[in-house]
């Protein structure tokens, strides 16, 4: 297995799950729902990546957030059906209960007085303010979740100009210093604490997606203990590496961490939340992705209880999956689950400097984009490269199946495979072949990406008669950087959903917001798209959804992408483990897992 160090926008699938997972043909794991509990309630599983950081203000990678959602809590969380339910907040604010003002700009939140940190400190509104202000100041990967709060950009500007000196940790140390001193330019004006149990949030305008985004577990919305982080001698950069400092409100706390080797979490005694945890200890081994085949072996020798947690639902090699499926005894342990992640090909539409035949909105550019799109057999790709086991053809639009905004099977006209029409389009718009002579497809190195790239290359050769050059970029950060700056004519692109709201996709990938954030791969921007987007973002989901669907149609009419596949995750679960994703919304809450006697 080639190490794949790309963690694209990773928030664990398990955080939010998918509604129609069962309908998508997932084979269920054989977990027994009744039975006596084992005397030893210890869960043992591997992850295949080191934690990058467990600081909720900075977290980004799926492996981190999936683990940390058991250690930290947000104000709310998602239940098994993806409804928002209270967590540290005692209620979910709505217009009906007065939690949200009639114009939708003011949120009043009451905290659960029982909530406390694992070290006994009670949670107060000051902690909420500290956590959120800090997260914004840190410019973390997900700080944009709080972008609708008044004062957000002021804080980012103030924190973004740290005193310049040569030694490191000035940026983060400075933030802690200013927040401890109560410097108001580091605190969002729209975030206030009216009393120790109440928080008020003021937005600049109505926001239909904000509550959903703030509920995203394990990241920016999570509440941290200021007393711990600001204690003397605690390094603001690596405070999270010692068990004594990793203090959250979750059901589990860190008890041991050996970097690059293992970590151990233990139940928090007398935890304030529910359901009360059964598992006493979680032992996690950090392994190298190249040892995935032998780790699968170890699973069948009962060395591990689960494989696939920690964001590693794609870690089991295809060969192993095929072998497991052929073995009736082993097959019962395999759980296949669609994953909220889509991969597609982006065209360079908006960056004339980069060049290529796809730039602009002329009939020729659009026609050529369509030609390339129709020339790819998407079902064939899923069958040949993935054996329909680790991916499925993306025919319902770019938002993955099971998420709000997906159009349903075969609803995406760009997912069609029509070689004849593709060829005629090519002849029509590039009769001499001059425009499509030197087209390149760029992608980041990784075994699946290589296979997909080679498949695409052979499709364009067979169905269009064109030689597309493959450009494999071995360094992921270079690839991402170039892709974000629009330097590729055609590139592999993709997105893993963070929360179940179309705004997550349409804001971040195309249009004015993506451009201003420097994240618009295709450079697609269109006044009509932007105005509909702004409108949709302000409305609650029920009225916003048709608007978001319009955006999807704009992208399809304009042939902004070639849809490729939705990811499919595979998990191995021992039969004596109950509650591990055996429900429809595949989640990774450790306090729902029990070990049955075996």
């Amino acid at each position, binding site marked *: 297995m080639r190490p794949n160090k790309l963690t694209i926008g990773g928030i664990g699938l398990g955080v939010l799950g998918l509604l129609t997972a069962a309908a998508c043909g997932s084979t269920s794991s054989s977990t027994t729902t009744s039975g006596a509990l084992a005397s030893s309630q210890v869960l043992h599983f591997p992850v295949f990546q080191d934690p990058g950081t467990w600081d909720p203000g900075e977290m980004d990678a799926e492996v981190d957030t999936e683990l940390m959602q058991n250690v930290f809590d947000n104000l709310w969380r998602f239940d098994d059906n993806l409804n928002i339910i209270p967590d540290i907040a005692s209620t979910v604010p709505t217009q009906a209960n007065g939690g949200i003002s009639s114009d939708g700009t003011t949120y009043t939140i009451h905290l659960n007085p029982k909530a406390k940190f694992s070290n006994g400190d009670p949670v107060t509104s000051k902690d909420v303010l500290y956590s959120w202000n800090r997260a914004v100041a840190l410019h973390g990967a997900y700080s944009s979740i709080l972008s609708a709060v008044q004062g957000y950009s002021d804080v980012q500007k103030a924190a973004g100009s740290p005193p310049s000196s040569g030694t490191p940790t000035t940026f983060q140390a400075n933030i802690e210093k200013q927040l401890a001193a109560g410097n108001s330019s580091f605190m969002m004006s729209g975030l206030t604490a009216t009393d120790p149990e109440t928080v008020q949030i003021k937005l600049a305008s109505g926001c239909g997606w904000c509550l959903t985004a703030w509920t995203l577990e394990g990241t920016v919305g999570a509440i941290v203990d200021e007393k711990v982080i600001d204690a003397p001698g605690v390094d603001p950069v690596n405070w999270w*590496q010692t068990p004594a400092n990793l203090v959250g409100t979750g059901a589990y706390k860190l008890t041991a961490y050996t*970097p690059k080797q293992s970590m151990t979490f233990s139940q928090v005694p007398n935890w304030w939340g529910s359901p009360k945890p059964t598992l006493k200890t979680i032992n996690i081994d950090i392994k190298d992705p190249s*040892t995935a085949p032998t780790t699968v*072996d170890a699973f069948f020798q009962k060395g591990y209880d689960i494989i696939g947690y920690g964001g590693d639902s794609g870690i089991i090699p295809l060969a192993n999956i095929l072998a497991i499926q052929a073995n009736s005894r082993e097959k019962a342990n395999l759980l296949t689950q669609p994953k909220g992640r889509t991969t597609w090909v982006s065209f360079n539409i908006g960056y004339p400097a980069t060049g290529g035949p796809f730039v602009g909105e002329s009939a020729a550019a659009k026609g050529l984009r369509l030609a390339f799109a129709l020339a790819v057999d998407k079902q064939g790709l899923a069958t040949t490269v993935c054996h329909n086991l680790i991916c499925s053809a993306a025919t319902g639009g770019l938002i993955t199946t099971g998420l709000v905004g997906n159009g349903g099977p075969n609803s995406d006209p760009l997912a069609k495979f029509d070689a004849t029409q593709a060829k005629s389009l090519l002849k029509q718009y590039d009769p001499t072949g001059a425009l499509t002579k030197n087209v390149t497809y760029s992608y980041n190195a990784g075994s699946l990406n290589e296979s997909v790239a080679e498949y695409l290359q052979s499709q364009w050769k067979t169905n269009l008669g064109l030689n597309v050059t493959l450009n494999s970029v071995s360094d992921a950060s270079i690839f991402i950087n170039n892709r974000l700056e629009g330097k590729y004519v055609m590139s592999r692109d993709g997105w893993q959903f963070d929360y179940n709201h179309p705004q997550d996709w349409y804001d971040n990938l195309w249009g004015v917001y993506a451009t201003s954030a420097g994240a618009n791969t295709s450079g697609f921007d269109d006044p009509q798209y932007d105005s509909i987007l702004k409108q949709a973002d302000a409305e609650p989901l029920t009225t916003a959804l048709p608007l978001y669907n319009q955006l999807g149609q704009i992208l399809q009419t304009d042939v902004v992408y070639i849809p490729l596949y939705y990811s499919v995750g595979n998990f191995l679960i021992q039969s004596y483990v109950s509650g591990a994703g055996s429900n429809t919304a595949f989640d990774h809450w450790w306090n729902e897992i029990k070990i049955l006697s075996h």
Partner: protein
Amino acid sequence: MLTRGTLIYIAQRLALIVFTLIAVSFLVFVTVHTLPGNAFESDRVHGRALQLLLHEYGLDQPVLVQYWNFLLNALHGNLGVSFQIRGLPITPLVMRELSVSAELGGTALLITIGLGTTFGVIAAMRQNSWVDYTLTSIAVVGYSVPSFVFAGLGVLIFSYFLPSVTNGVISYPAIWTGTYGTLVELSLPAIILGFYTSGQVTRITRAAMLEVLQQDYIRTARAKGLKTRVVTIRHALRNALIPVISILGPLVISIITGSVIIENIFGIPGLGKEFVESILAADYNVTVAVFTVYALLIGIANLIVDLLYTVVDPRIRY
């Protein structure tokens, strides 16, 4: 034995080691820090956020300034912090991994010397017989067949074939548990690594033994009527071992190089695996630290071996 000449020699060698360390760390540091790419950029971390992270770790300063800070810290034993695991101090991490590599390497070295000398002695005593040819061929096989071939074969046999044949009764978990693994888990990688470098030892021992066996004093000893085996083991062996000591330095280097390969194949959490991992993750501080530790290791190993030489062969003086 610890004469003035020896002390001067040691001082000279230590000075050379320090010079090598500085030169190597400087070259590697500058080289990797001028590589494009970094450990932070992702779909969500770019632009201003990325710049602030780079500033946090001092990565926006000129390379020479960064190296100077690194050198000053290194002299205090602080090898910097990791980018991949943000802010993780590198020194304790590298020290721990060094001990794991030493465990693997040390075991392999024992196997190498044991296996190599045994084969070499036997081959020499049975010169030109089929035993000789077999053993020398085994030696060549050792350093010709890539270690990942043996590793793959080992996994194939012990993790797939044997369990399927014995229905899971005999199985070999080719994964490493904990920091130092268990004896069973250490055995396969150590044997492969040891076998890989034993070929050189076999050949040297055999050649030395052959030469010694021709010597006059052996003939004299035999003429005196001492039994062949006594003659061999007592007289010949001691002198034949000297060339082995002479290549002990290069042998250690071979083991170190081989361990990089073996650690990556078996997922053993040692320095070699750390090196490849850090390069792939653009965690350049760690790369430089590992490189420097290796250079230090080799320098000291060579020095110890050369000093050992004086113990074994009193004719050598510095």
